[in-house]
């Protein structure tokens, strides 16, 4: 048994001593010694390279979460949508031992659940059962990884269901807007892939088999298990049911950052208007953000907290919703992944307020790199992050999720240990610098709203009308 070197007890000690006590602390800080009492996540590697994370649960429940390194960020315009189709096919076509819907029937007949989901970077297979059905759960997982069925008829059904979902999503202005935003920022690949009838049409049994054979390999699969069953039993079950998975190495996507930045620059300042005759306009502003290991992310996290991620006291929320009553839904986010990241700012407002809201969004974004945040704002953001840190370790899913994040991103074992110290070390000057670097790459604006907004929006930049297919 090879245990992860990341001992949570050590986390606790280091956090206690690394916190800079000279910083302004308006409130009594939360103690972090809870970390030493957290249950221990144990790691085991099977002979074929499958990583197994285990955590003991008191409830008589077993949750198995298999993370396979392939997701929508691995797609391009030629195969856009393949991750969704793959997951849907696995769900409805089943495996050699559990063909078709017998997989779901078998699990549900004992009160179990299975969910196969297409993420940005990974495909997730989650199986939940009462612990007495561990054997069944591992048997199904093993068969899904080794012997899935990719029958033509089932693949066609999966394609139809995925296309239907995409079309229905596109009826929602939020979905339409964010898809266009990502498409423009990332040039139609990775984060910016747009599944179409054509790209989905290109997918067949052969392409799914090829993809699964390449992805569902030992080194490319990490399995996190929480169970009331002992660790040794779980390892033994995993070895029995998963040992036939072939070895392989971790597969990662790549992005052409230079091209992305060049495309953003050329589209920056343009307002893409998707006409939709609704009473409310949906506005997105976004750009590319750094990858997860970038050191400046701590500053960008705090920047975003102050700008629009920190609930009602963030600037966008305060300026647009609280002070002016112009929107219900207002936020910004920064998401950093292994090789790519995205910044998004979002507001929905009455059509007649769209111009003013767009100005406010731009003004507040610019302010982040034109003047330092106040001492009070910075102290509030740091205190909030520090005091809510305990919620990143609140339940078993959180603990295993943290380890999966470390595993996929090859993060340093001390990532969670040092996190608060890194946040605490951020200065207002760094926030200005990092904001400037990110926002001066260029900002893409997408508005979903009435066609007659073109006139109002044109005073904020060149408007390009993007007609949508029905």
């Amino acid at each position: 048994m090879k245990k992860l070197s990341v001992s949570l007890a050590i986390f606790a000690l280091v956090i206690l001593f690394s916190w800079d006590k000279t910083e302004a602390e308006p409130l009594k800080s939360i103690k972090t010694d809870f970390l030493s009492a957290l249950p221990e996540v144990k790691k085991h590697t099977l002979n074929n390279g499958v990583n197994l994370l285990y955590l003991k649960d008191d409830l008589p429940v077993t949750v198995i979460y298999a993370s396979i390194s392939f997701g929508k960020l691995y797609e391009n315009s030629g195969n856009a949508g393949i991750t969704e189709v793959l997951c849907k096919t696995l769900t409805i076509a089943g495996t050699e031992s559990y063909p078709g819907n017998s997989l779901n029937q078998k699990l549900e007949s004992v009160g179990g659940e299975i969910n196969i989901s297409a993420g940005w970077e990974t495909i997730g297979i989650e199986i939940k059962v009462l612990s007495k059905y561990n054997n069944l759960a591992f048997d199904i997982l093993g068969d899904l990884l080794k012997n899935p069925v990719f029958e033509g008829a089932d693949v066609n059904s999966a394609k139809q269901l995925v296309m239907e979902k995409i079309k229905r999503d596109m009826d929602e202005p939020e979905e339409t807007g964010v898809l266009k935003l990502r498409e423009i920022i990332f040039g139609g690949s990775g984060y910016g892939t747009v599944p179409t009838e054509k790209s989905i049409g290109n997918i067949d049994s052969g392409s799914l088999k090829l993809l699964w054979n390449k992805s569902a390999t030992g080194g490319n699969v990490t399995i996190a298990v929480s169970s009331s069953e002992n660790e040794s039993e779980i390892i033994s079950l995993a070895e029995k049911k998963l040992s036939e998975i072939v070895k392989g190495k971790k597969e990662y996507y790549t992005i052409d950052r230079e091209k992305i930045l060049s495309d953003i620059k050329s589209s920056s300042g343009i307002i893409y208007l998707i006409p939709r005759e609704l009473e409310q306009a949906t506005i997105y502003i976004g750009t590319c953000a750094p990858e997860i290991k970038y050191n400046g992310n701590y500053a960008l996290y705090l920047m975003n907290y102050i700008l629009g991620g920190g609930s009602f006291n963030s600037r966008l929320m305060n300026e647009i919703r609280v002070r002016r009553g112009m929107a219900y839904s207002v936020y910004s986010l920064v998401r950093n992944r292994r090789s790519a990241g995205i910044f998004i700012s979002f507001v929905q407002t009455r059509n007649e307020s769209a111009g003013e809201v767009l100005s406010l969004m731009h003004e507040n974004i610019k302010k982040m790199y034109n003047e330092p945040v106040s001492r009070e704002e910075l102290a509030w953001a740091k205190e909030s992050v520090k005091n809510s840190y305990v919620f990143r370790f609140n339940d078993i899913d959180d603990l295993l999720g943290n380890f999966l994040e470390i595993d996929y991103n090859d993060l340093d074992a001390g990532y969670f240990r040092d996190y608060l110290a890194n946040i605490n070390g951020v200065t207002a000057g760094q926030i200005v610098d990092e904001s400037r670097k990110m926002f001066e790459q260029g900002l893409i604006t997408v508005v979903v709203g009435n066609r007659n907004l073109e006139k109002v929006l044109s005073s904020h930049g060149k408007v390009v009308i993007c007609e949508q297919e029905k």
Partner: protein
Amino acid sequence: MKKFYICFVLIFLMISVNNYSTEVDTTEYFKTKVVEKRLKNGIVLLMMDRGFSPTLAFHISFRVGSVDESYSTSGAAHILEHMLFKGTDKLGTKDYQKEKPILNRIEAVGETIDRLRLENPGSGEIKKLEAELKSLEVRQSELAISSPYDMLYTSNGGVMFNASTSRDMTGYYIQLPSDRIELWAETESARLKNPVFREYYKERDNVFEERLMRYQTSGDGLLQEAFFAAAYSAHPYRHPTIGWESNIKYMSINDIRKFYNTYYIPSRMTITVVGKQNPEETYNTIKKYFEDIKPRPEPGEIKIIEPEQVGEKRISVYFKSRPSIMIGWKKPTAPAKDDYAFDIMQTALGTGKSSRLYKSLVLEKKLASAVYAWNGAPGSRYDNMFIVYAAPVAGVSLETLEKEIYSEMSRFRKEIDSAEIDRVKNLSESSFIFMLDNNDGIAGQLSYYQTVFKDWRYLANYLENLNKVSVEDIYSAFDKYIKDNNRTVAVLLDDRSVK
């Protein structure tokens, strides 16, 4: 749309928390773990010590929702919920003595504008008053500290600070590190004892924006609203919780205040605290801050009873979105035995990929891309409905889909047997146990059942009661309520396809 799906998930969770298992005796689990206290003023306090992380989930709920509103106050419960985020005479103000007369004047001017807009929209006074209101709001904002709770709680590590209003109840939630319990108790008790409704007109505008987002830019949102308005002729379940557009635009601050005074009373209030704690200490802290909230008279339950439906109701809604259909039948609410039978029907027909409707309509016949069944909408304090929702795949008409739904339901009636009921009970049992893994989920369940059914033990005893349902009970409930003349059908049609 999202809210719609969340609704399915929530309702599924609400009905599936129960026990008949030998795996974990969940009845015993709850009865042993839940500590119940009642404060002198009538507030019910529920506590559960659990988990490994030093955090707590707090839920405060009131047995008041949009079902308690009148035609003229539709939306009041929800606007009141928003106003409870605006502070007190001490929190959220720099100088309340100076702020108060401005707030009074804002109210007087705002109410006059609303009256003129309704009664004499051409009046030249409106513009003048609007200018005065704007200037007053600027003066008031200089004396106010906006979003005061948010700042206080986030600084103290609070997460998921939120609130919600439904037909049946209103809830206020937050999760905090366990050592912030006194801060929470002091803050929330003051928030409930002495709220100040500042920034009212701006917040009312925000609620209007929320309505646009949920119901006027989403086909399924619109469908759901129209469905319940058609299904109920008299009962206030017909009104959307957020209120009708005109209600929101003209909602009087005075009506909100009256609503607060009438319904935010200790006898309608439940406090639930779940997570790492010493319940005795929690009780003492809560008693210290909440027991002096003065009791007020119980306003009583609503007097309107929905008349028996005497024929099918059918409506069409047109919007720029792909079609879907909602079909519902009226039936009794819990704790009627028929309600448990409908819970079984919900799971058998629409829960999971091996459920009858999903298997037949989505997987085998390929007529639908999504199908759900749920029992207990739009609320559970009064008799409610059993509903099926489906979205056809392109090229399949709603008529065909509707016909197939009825065929599947008839087949269910013919074929249901004890083996299928066992599958449903297995799913319910495991869902119950799966739900026990987080503080907030448990707090939500306890709070819901105590508030809506006036006894959290409904939750603890649920599986035992579900286990008593027989095939004959299902026949009986089905035959009594799944009838054409007790049915409401609403279809959403894509107006881009209509010539």
